[in-house]
């Protein structure tokens, strides 16, 4: 569908949801739930916890949609709630994040137009190493790296999502990348 029409439809659904239309919100949820679950999984490295995070984030979004002003896009707003919820639930459970390696291996290699047969194997290998290294990063460091380098959020968006200053977001990202680099070097990258 035409991206403009998709955005217009989303705006309409958001307006209806703000007015209390649960069906409209359910439609919004269904169109974003895979992305929210993906982000939650990357932040928590735990499938069950990620599902709880996504569910809790949806409930928070439903409760808070009256205050959504539309300054950012709806998906960015949902991402912020998901990142915050992941942080809160993870701290509540105080469970050490782990990544079942067999999961990383089961995930199919992405098929993109840029995929080249000669580099596809290297990229797949690198992706697996990255998944493993990310899972070994402390939660706070993983959060900024995932939001910036994987999800492509700006420093400003990350700062807003995590409730920190932009400078703090930059510093945290710099330190996190250094740690990630050390982990990758230990892993032979």
């Amino acid at each position: 569908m035409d991206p403009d029409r998709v955005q217009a439809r989303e705006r309409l659904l958001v307006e209806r949801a703000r007015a209390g239309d649960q069906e409209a919100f359910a439609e919004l949820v269904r169109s974003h739930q895979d992305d929210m679950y993906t982000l939650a999984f990357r932040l928590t490295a735990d499938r069950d916890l990620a599902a709880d995070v996504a569910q809790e984030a949806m409930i928070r979004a439903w409760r808070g949609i009256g205050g959504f002003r539309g300054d950012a896009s709806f998906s960015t707003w949902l991402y912020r709630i998901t990142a915050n919820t992941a942080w809160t639930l993870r701290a509540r459970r105080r469970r050490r994040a782990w990544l079942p390696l067999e999961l990383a291996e089961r995930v199919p290699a992405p098929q993109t137009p840029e995929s080249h047969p000669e580099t596809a194997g290297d990229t797949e290998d690198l992706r697996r190493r990255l998944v493993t290294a990310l899972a070994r990063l402390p939660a706070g460091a993983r959060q900024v790296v995932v939001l910036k380098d994987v999800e492509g959020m700006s420093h400003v968006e990350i700062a807003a999502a995590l409730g920190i200053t932009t400078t703090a977001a930059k510093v945290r990202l710099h330190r996190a990348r250094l740690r990630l680099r050390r982990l990758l070097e230990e892993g032979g990258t």
Partner: protein
Amino acid sequence: MKPTCRLCGPLAMVAALDDRSPVAPVARHVSGCLRCQAEVARGRALRRGFAALGAVRYTAPRDFAAGIERSSGVTAPRRRVPVVPVVVVAASVVVALSLRRRLAAG
């Protein structure tokens, strides 16, 4: 004299690049220095890896919309109730009732 890299020091410079050439430091950094070239290659590889990671999307294990409907106490978005008008109206009603009572009592 052995040519040096302006950005990462003398040890890693390769002779391929003429140190006297008026090449901008960044171009020199990328094209001339073995160490920096390694950094650049690693940076490119990492970006490729992150892009591959970002391209993978997981499917939600359940319908979260149904979860919201099932959640107790989640019936509608919280409305922002204007506090001041509510207080003013309530106070006015109390005053009006009080006056009426006094008038009725004579």
